[in-house]
């Protein structure tokens, strides 16, 4: 029998259903991989008992003929989703020891679908980062190494870096991620897996620790496109508890998967051809264009003229929303309290927040506070919101002539830990291709496409029209079938 931890979500689901193995065997195999991979630091909390309990229920359901859509599938949960009775920290000192008395909508849906939880996955603190180096609980390490014989520890991407590292290392077949400005797609690209951010509003934000509410969106990360479709079907759906939740039926994305792109038009945005970009990135992009042509699609050149303003607009809007959202951490209602001797209420707030937030979180709160302050609000925040309108309009016009857009996911392969931490700006620039779709609220996914000359994975990004996750998944499938990406990191941990 194939090693159970090499199976995809679909294979586990179908194999369990067919009686090829028990869910408990699957959960035990993944629990063992999780326990043996401490060197990756992908998990903040391991929950082997949760996985086993769900597996026992899945096996009982199979015997009783009451199988659920994801019975027998254990997954990883990004530690940004509140989980009832299990510590939820957003990888911050501020929320260390915080044990929610409620369950996020997305995680509840997955448990209701039969999934078990292997643990809470590490991430960038409050999901702010692109390398998983801002976690209070230490860096997550990518399972990948460069092929130069060196032993440099590489970034798994961020903010969903625990999710990406764990899936690539076969610690879980799939995991949840969240994407505010690329936090699902960029880590997926860095480790050679797939991930999709659906249309803003598809997945409920209720119970997800808030970062930038107009951008935050949950989505799945897994090893292939089919698994992403399966997971997303079981995460999405209307939730009255989230005011921005879309009241739309969840399509059967998996059933409608098709890599036949005849009659489809794929847009290639000229502004994404960056001067001086790594030639491996451009070569992969060109190969991707050829793959989609081979799948029957017609390729058209498009222009997204405000692309270069997306990142600066994002770095006003996201910190502004973050400064407001993170005002709730005051040392009164939950989380850390730092009360210096003889301190009053205001001193307690300031001490608590100084102690509980890491440097990147503080930086963003400060930027957000500044751009929202009297006298600067219009010049920064309102201007950024207007530019956001123009960026969304660029996409609307482009989708007048094409069905999906193909671009690289990130401007580079995974970089080494510590290589970009000295300069916050150079880190921000890694999200240059991911942020525009976030600002426009569009569905976008990354699929692994190639290895670069250093032997590291590179991802292609497909951006679709609002609500057209199917078009995105189908184009992703067409690339997946043709790229034949099956490289995996050699085990060293």
């Amino acid at each position, binding site marked *: 029998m194939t090693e159970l931890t090499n199976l995809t979500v679909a294979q586990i689901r179908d194999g369990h259903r067919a009686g090829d193995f028990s869910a408990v065997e699957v959960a035990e195999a993944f629990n063992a991989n999780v326990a043996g991979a401490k060197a990756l630091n992908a998990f903040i909390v391991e929950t082997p008992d949760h996985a086993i309990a769900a597996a026992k229920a899945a096996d009982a359901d199979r015997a009783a003929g009451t199988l659920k859509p994801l019975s027998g599938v254990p997954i990883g949960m990004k530690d940004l989703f509140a989980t009832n009775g299990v510590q939820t920290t957003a990888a911050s000192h501020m929320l260390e020891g915080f044990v929610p008395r409620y369950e996020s909508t997305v995680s509840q849906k997955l448990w209701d679908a039969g999934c078990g939880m292997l643990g809470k996955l590490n991430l960038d603190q409050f999901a702010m980062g692109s390398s998983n180096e801002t976690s209070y609980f230490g860096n997550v390490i990518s399972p990948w190494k460069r092929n130069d014989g060196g032993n440099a520890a590489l970034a798994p991407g961020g903010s969903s870096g625990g999710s990406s590292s764990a899936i690539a290392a076969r610690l879980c077949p799939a995991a949840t991620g969240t994407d505010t400005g690329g936090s699902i797609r960029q880590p997926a690209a860095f480790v050679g897996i797939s991930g999709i951010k659906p249309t803003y509003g598809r997945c409920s934000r209720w119970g997800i620790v808030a970062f930038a509410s107009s951008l935050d969106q949950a989505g799945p990360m897994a090893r292939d496109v089919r698994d992403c479709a399966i997971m997303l079907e079981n995460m999405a759906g209307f939730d009255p508890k989230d005011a921005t939740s879309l009241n739309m039926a969840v399509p059967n994305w998996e059933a409608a998967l098709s890599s036949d792109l005849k009659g489809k038009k794929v847009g290639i945005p000229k502004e994404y051809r960056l001067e001086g970009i790594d030639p491996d990135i451009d070569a992969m992009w060109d190969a991707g264009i050829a793959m989609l042509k081979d799948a029957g699609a017609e390729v058209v050149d498009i222009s997204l003229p405000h692309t270069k*303003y997306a990142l600066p607009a994002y770095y006003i809007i996201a910190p502004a929303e973050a400064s407001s959202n993170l005002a709730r951490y005051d040392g009164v*209602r939950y989380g*850390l309290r730092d009360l210096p001797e003889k301190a009053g209420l205001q001193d307690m707030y300031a001490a608590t927040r100084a102690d509980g937030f890491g440097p990147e979180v503080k930086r963003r709160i400060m930027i957000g506070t500044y751009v929202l302050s009297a006298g600067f609000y219009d010049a920064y925040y309102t*201007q950024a919101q*207007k530019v956001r309108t123009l960026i969304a309009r660029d996409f609307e016009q482009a989708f007048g002539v094409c069905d999906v857009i193909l671009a690289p996911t990130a401007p580079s392969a995974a970089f080494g830990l510590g290589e970009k931490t000295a300069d916050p700006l150079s880190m921000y620039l890694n999200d240059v291709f991911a942020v525009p779709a976030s600002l426009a609220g569009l569905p976008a996914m990354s699929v692994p496409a190639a290895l670069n000359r250093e032997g590291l994975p590179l991802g292609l990004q497909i951006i679709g029209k609002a609500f057209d996750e199917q078009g995105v998944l189908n184009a992703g499938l067409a690339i997946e079938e043709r790229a034949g990406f099956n490289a995996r990191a050699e085990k060293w941990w």
Partner: protein
Amino acid sequence: MTIDQATVRKIASLARIAISDAEAAAMEGELNGILGWVEQLGEVDVTGVEPMTAVIPNRLRLRDDVIDADPLTGGNRRDDILANAPAPQHGFFGVPKVIE
């Protein structure tokens, strides 16, 4: 526009984050770097453009005006709400004395 250390300290105070002089000095450079970079947004012609406040048009809903419409977010959850409070007292959140 550049900000000086006094402004950094003012922002930190508005954000209720205590910072040392060394941190303020380090942050002065970082914040100026970021603010200088976002300044390029000023060159975009936004004449007649409305600021985007919601990315997907979605009308806000009203729930029925009844008590405890949702058992999860309704009332009678005092113990759950206080369970993670750092200093709960007598069924309330505890804070340092604010009135002498």
